[in-house]
């Protein structure tokens, strides 16, 4: 499967009477976007706002971040099985509005998640302080259940990203990259001397605000399966999960999965990126056993020499992670795991809720318990009402001078377990 991705660099975003994309400036027709969102009768109102890098703006509580993309050539459309019919994506050509993002916020529940600061210390910890953001704050109709609200908000964010992406259809990209994922036998024949490396991506799949969808399928209902990494670049995997914002993959993360990007970079040079496997993280222990059995079976079946496993989330996924690692090592394939840590505020506690001797190559996204003080910013998009009830907030953590004391877990993407973050020990 071969996908050409054309990156159009976005250098500014503005509201305008007419939607367009000219010389890197994204002009957003606020009325048209608002009208599109309000077609969903579950949404009573939406406020659209713009947040640019360096501005004194705090966005919270963030639900999802989505990069605008459009399919220019080839089968299917962006976000297949969700916004468009189920058709295999991942080949042809896709245009990306690089540097732009749609950010969704809304009060689904009374405890809330996710801070994006566009400047100051907080901005250092989230990748979305560097994007030109169109932010939508949704209010539901009265009496809407949390499930319906979550669903409406999720779809609205995807529609917005698709509408913006459409503006890049005819634009000449600044850079074009080609990603090719070969059938298993062809890859083996083409690179007989290179180690066959696979990627196992674990997807959060547990319940309200803890779910992930693949071609529209709730991943908790799926067995472990395979996917072409190019399909992921076309929006085959979308996020429905935002609780514990630091180590959840937004849809933007899936579209820009750095494990996929780096494996493609190394493909044909130091390794053969032979396969991508996706598996779930369910609540039932029998599911964890079944899914990790299946992961190891596929790894053995594909005759992989090495595997990178990325986790999503905290606590019970540690058990899935260790099961995957242990069982894959047991079939003779070496593993590297990517996780993050809850090691206490001083960093001295046990980092994971599970462990095994075979997990001897670990990459960490950082300690989510690390405490940071975020300065008062001039403008808040969304609301600060819930800041003391987000993961990582404390009771009365909103201080008199307007600064807030939080653990890193409150900041969207701070300890991301795909490695899409800015923390480093270097």
């Amino acid at each position, binding site marked *: 499967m071969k996908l050409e991705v054309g990156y159009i660099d976005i250098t500014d975003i503005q509201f305008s009477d007419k939607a367009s994309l000219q010389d890197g400036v994204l002009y957003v027709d606020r009325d048209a976007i608002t009208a599109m969102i309000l077609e969903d009768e579950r949404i009573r109102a939406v406020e659209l706002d713009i947040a640019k890098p360096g501005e004194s703006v705090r966005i919270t509580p963030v639900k999802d971040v989505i990069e605008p993309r459009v399919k220019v050539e080839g089968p299917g459309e962006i976000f297949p099985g969700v916004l468009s019919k189920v058709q295999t994506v991942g080949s042809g050509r896709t245009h990306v509005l690089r540097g732009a993002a749609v950010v969704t916020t809304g009060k689904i*529940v*009374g*405890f809330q998640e996710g801070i994006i600061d566009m400047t100051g210390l907080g901005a250092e910890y989230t990748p979305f302080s560097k994007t030109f953001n169109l932010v939508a704050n949704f209010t539901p109709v009265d009496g809407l259940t*949390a*499930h319906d609200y979550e669903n409406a908000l999720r779809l609205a964010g995807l529609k917005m990203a698709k509408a913006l992406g459409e503006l890049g259809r005819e634009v000449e990209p600044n850079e074009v990259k080609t990603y090719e994922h070969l059938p298993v036998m062809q890859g083996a024949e083409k690179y007989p001397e290179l180690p066959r490396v696979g990627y196992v991506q674990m997807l*959060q*799949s*547990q*319940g*309200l*605000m*803890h779910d992930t969808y693949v071609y529209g399928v709730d991943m*908790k*209902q799926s067995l472990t399966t395979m996917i072409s990494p190019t399909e992921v670049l076309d929006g085959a995997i979308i996020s429905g*999960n935002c*609780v*514990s914002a630091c180590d*959840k993959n937004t849809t933007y993360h899936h579209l820009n999965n750095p494990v996929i990007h780096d494996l493609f970079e190394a493909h044909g040079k130091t390794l053969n990126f032979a396969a991508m496997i996706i598996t779930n993280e*369910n*609540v*039932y*222990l*029998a*599911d*964890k056993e079944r899914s990790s059995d299946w992961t190891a079976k596929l790894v053995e079946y594909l005759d992989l020499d090495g595997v990178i496993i990325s986790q999503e*989330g*905290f*606590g*019970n996924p*540690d*058990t899935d992670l260790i099961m995957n690692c242990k069982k894959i090592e047991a079939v003779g394939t070496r593993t590297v795991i990517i996780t993050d840590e*809850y090691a*206490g505020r001083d960093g001295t*506690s*046990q980092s994971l*809720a*599970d462990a095994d001797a075979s997990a001897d190559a670990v990459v960490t996204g950082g300690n989510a*318990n690390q405490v940071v003080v975020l300065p008062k910013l001039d403008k808040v998009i969304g609301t600060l009402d819930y800041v*003391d*009830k987000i*993961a990582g*907030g*404390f*009771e009365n953590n909103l201080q008199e001078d307007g600064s807030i004391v939080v653990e890193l*877990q409150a900041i969207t993407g701070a300890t991301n377990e795909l490695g899409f973050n800015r923390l480093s020990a270097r």
Partner: protein
Amino acid sequence: MSLKEGAALDKLITNNPLAAKDFADRCAVEYADVSLRDILVRVRDYVHKGHKLLTHPLSGSIKPGETPYKSILVSAAPGQGLDLPSLRIIEDSIVTCDKFPIKYPHIPEHVLADFQEVDRTLIAGALYKHSSSK
């Protein structure tokens, strides 16, 4: 989880009144108005008696110390002896729980209701998916 007439129902150990009410016909509900940690300890007691852990005690991403609620399924009847994997998981979960201080001693009613709903959906996802198999 079996709904067959006469079959013993798995036990739901919970301090979440919403889950206790909603799953009353699908599980043998043992509800107690106790702390999240106390629920973990009660589950450990069942594991010591030979019951098997069916759902992960650290379900969901809301941390201990943030949500006060926890619902955990254990097998209906004790098995043959102690299930060591169950014991390891519940012990590790208690260790993890103790890492998280109670952040919000005063939670408003509507937020409590939301915490109950999220805990309920975590178990619902497990229960309904397994309505016809063990």
